[in-house]
């Protein structure tokens, strides 16, 4: 297989991602006043990872909301949020990651920055992909449920200790815009910014490192990739086994072997590169 760089026009997808990010972060005045949106739309979750403390956010982050509900003293199960995630996952699977996640878009754009040695995969890559499931279980479910204060309330530990999206979308603009918050900055803020800087640097070198190894939302949606209504399929009669699709995939999936892999974010690169149009997507099974 030759090592020539594959050129695929991804700007139509990035356009959809940007449009969705703009739509779900349309409280523009928040970026000037340093105040977040407090309207009724915040009752509803957005499908992607989008911090609700982002000054522009008009919806609620599903991961933050889930931890808030199960960490509250009166609820220990979040039917509203889990139902929402199952609904979206069952219809689209990880298409959300590819098209409707603002933090995914940020990583996509960061990866376009030239770097002498981009890393596609490395030893332990496959094992490290499992980390996101551990993070989902430990930081999003178990810790908010069981590491509680005297009132029986748990903190949103994933948001507090890990989430770089919250730091980028909420932490940085709010601290820059509010003097009182600047004075409250401490070790946690430094820690979260360190994670953000590491995520940004890694995103330039590796394609979507946060989605591959850390994101609990992607971990949840991935379970639905094999059963979702929208899916990918490969026409075995048309496939010439040229290997172009596997080479084009930045999530390191081989669509011919597993068109609905847990790691597939349904970006459509494989579909675009296929010389025989053997890869199709939609609701059809065969």
């Amino acid at each position: 297989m030759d090592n020539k760089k594959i050129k695929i026009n991804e700007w139509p997808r990035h356009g959809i991602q940007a449009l969705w990010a703009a739509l779900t972060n349309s409280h523009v005045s928040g970026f000037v006043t340093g105040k977040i949106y407090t309207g009724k739309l915040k009752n509803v979750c957005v499908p992607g990872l989008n911090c609700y403390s982002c000054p522009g956010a008009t919806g609620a982050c599903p991961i933050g909301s889930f931890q808030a509900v199960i960490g509250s003293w009166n609820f220990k199960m979040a039917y509203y949020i889990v139902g929402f995630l199952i609904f979206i996952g069952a219809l689209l699977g990880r298409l959300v990651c590819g098209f409707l996640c603002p933090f995914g878009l940020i990583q996509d754009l960061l990866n376009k920055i030239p770097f002498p040695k981009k890393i596609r995969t490395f030893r332990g890559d496959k094992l490290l992909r499992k980390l996101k499931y551990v993070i989902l279980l430990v930081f999003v479910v178990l810790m908010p449920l069981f590491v509680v204060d005297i009132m029986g309330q748990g903190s949103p530990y994933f948001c507090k200790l890990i989430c770089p999206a919250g730091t980028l979308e909420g932490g940085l603009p709010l601290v820059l815009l509010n003097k009182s918050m600047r004075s409250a900055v401490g070790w946690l803020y430094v820690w979260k910014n360190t994670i953000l800087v590491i995520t940004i640097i890694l995103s330039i070198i590796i394609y979507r490192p946060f989605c591959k190894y850390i994101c609990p939302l992607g971990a949840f949606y991935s379970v639905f990739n094999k059963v979702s209504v929208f899916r990918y399929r490969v026409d075995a009669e048309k496939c010439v086994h040229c290997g172009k699709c596997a080479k084009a995939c930045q999530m390191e999936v081989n669509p011919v072997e597993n068109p609905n892999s847990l790691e597939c974010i349904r970006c459509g690169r494989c579909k675009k590169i296929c010389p025989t149009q053997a890869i199709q997507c939609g609701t059809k099974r065969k």
Partner: protein
Amino acid sequence: MKKLTETKWTGVVLAGAGILMIIFGIYRGEMSVVFTKAVNICMECIGIG
């Protein structure tokens, strides 16, 4: 197991179950917890609290 992944009805049934869970969650009052959290600055999320 393979049969479940071969039919689109698995996804449809799961989506339906998701809708029922959403309705049950709203009925239990979970939406107000989400709203309260989302309209106040989440100090943990931004790295302050």
